[in-house]
């Protein structure tokens, strides 16, 4: 019954649509990639990107609202205008840049790393798990290792724990808390690999104005050091800074 009322109210809102209030900017995120973005105990989106996004919106005097979307369809839903920005730990790549626009990076070029159950695990030619359709999966596919693709990051780590894969290849910052809390069960192996051109906010190509607004805000935050503070807060002291 509640929903019926809701729908009726929605119809009313639509009818009175011409009253143009300040547009709300809808911010798309995945909500499954800590510390960038995740769902906290209260069931709300939380993380580095949420805090940063809210600050950017405050500086640009925009009203923002967070929306979660499956990773697989996060770009199609942006270009079809179901939300206006993507902040989901999305690396700036040429392929993506052809379809959407990115602001300058708000997170320095990332490194990806291998994690395995022991130091001598074969991450070069063994079985390596990665999340399907990520730049990490593409990287492994090109190498000598046998790629094992899972739908979620959770499953890729689980695959190493249960021995299905020799190693998992993912963002260093995603793996770090996993390794730290594993109590020595999981360790980093090999050298980190620089992949991707930093993380930026994705926007529609037709939204140049909004892009400039956010670019300005990011520049301001880089200059006054607030972005660095936020990076250290979420990623620790080792994080590259601006």
């Amino acid at each position, binding site marked *: 019954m509640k929903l019926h009322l809701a729908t009726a109210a929605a119809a009313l809102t639509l009818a009175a*649509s011409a009253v143009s209030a*300040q547009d709300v900017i809808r911010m798309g995120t995945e909500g499954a990639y800590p510390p960038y973005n995740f769902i906290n105990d209260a069931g709300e989106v939380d993380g580095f990107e949420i805090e940063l996004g809210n600050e950017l919106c405050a500086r640009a005097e925009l009203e923002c609202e967070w929306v979660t979307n*499956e990773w697989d369809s996060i770009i199609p839903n942006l270009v079809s205008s179901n939300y206006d920005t993507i902040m989901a730990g999305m690396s700036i790549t040429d392929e993506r840049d052809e379809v959407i626009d990115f602001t300058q990076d708000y997170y320095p070029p990332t490194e990806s790393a291998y994690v395995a159950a022991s130091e001598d695990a074969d991450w070069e030619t063994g079985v390596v798990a990665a999340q399907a359709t990520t730049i990490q999966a593409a990287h492994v596919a090109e190498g000598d290792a046998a790629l094992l693709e899972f739908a979620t990051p959770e499953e890729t780590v689980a695959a190493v724990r249960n021995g299905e894969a020799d190693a998992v290849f993912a963002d260093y910052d995603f793996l770090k808390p996993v390794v730290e809390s594993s109590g020595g069960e999981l360790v980093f192996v090999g050298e980190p690999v620089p992949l991707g051109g930093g993380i930026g906010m994705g926007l529609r190509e037709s939204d140049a104005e909004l892009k400039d607004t956010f670019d300005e805000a990011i520049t301001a935050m880089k200059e006054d050091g607030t972005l660095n503070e936020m990076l250290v807060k979420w990623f620790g002291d080792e994080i590259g800074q601006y």
Partner: protein
Amino acid sequence: MMPACTDPDALEGLAWLACYLTTGKHMAFYTSFGTVLLLLAITAPAALAFGFGGAVMARSRIAPVSWIGRTYIAIVRGVPDIAFFLFFVIALDQAFEWLRHQAKCPDWDQPIRQGNDFVVCAEAKLPLSTAPQWVHETYGFALAVLTFAIVFGAFAANVLYGAMRAVPRAQIETAEAYGMTERQTFRRILVPQMWVYALPGLSNLWMVLIKATPLLFLLGVRDIVYWARELGGTKTPQFTDYPHGDWRMWYFLALLVFYLAFTKVSEVVLARIMARLTKGQATAGGEAQRKAAA
């Protein structure tokens, strides 16, 4: 959250579990069971309506109408529902916005497709970007219901089409002999009698529909599978007060129990409806009931 839960690290055993199971996130998980039930409650009649329309069209004597009905049934039945869900919702959303755009912004001079972007005027957006979050969620839910209804409508159409053909010819002929028009025959004889033939098929369809709901998360609705995966995944202490390992198995076990129980209840209820519908019908089942009563 209960006041006793302010410091979960100090808690142990049952107290910890009680706090853990009452976090805001878990509440969202419990609510999503309601979402699934609500979806089923709305989708079932909607799919039946689509099915009825499809069956009537497929039966039509006007060739193009019959052709449309048959194509709808054949195509939608031929495609796995998951493939359908992956692009259809976005297509549906764009179609609605395009229609609204044509109606509301006739003097819009920019193209709707700008490169990869699909951009309509602000007034045509669905829902409006000024609308609060719950409107967006309701809209997303409505799209999911519509998609489910279209997919399962095709299966229902197939069932109803078969059921309409199964009504004994003699019943129709008798009605015609009484001087009923075609429309009267359809409404007074065919439709009331077809249900008993359609019910076994429809109840199977209901069972399939129940089991298709885990695909909801593909449609952007945060359903029970979404929350089970989210809650069950390994939680590191940095991001939660309740760190734990990979508990997906327990959450999926809860889902399994839910689905099994729901299926069982449905079976019992449907068996009762069938018994009632069969009463007085000229079928083997009806005959058996008469014999049992005598």
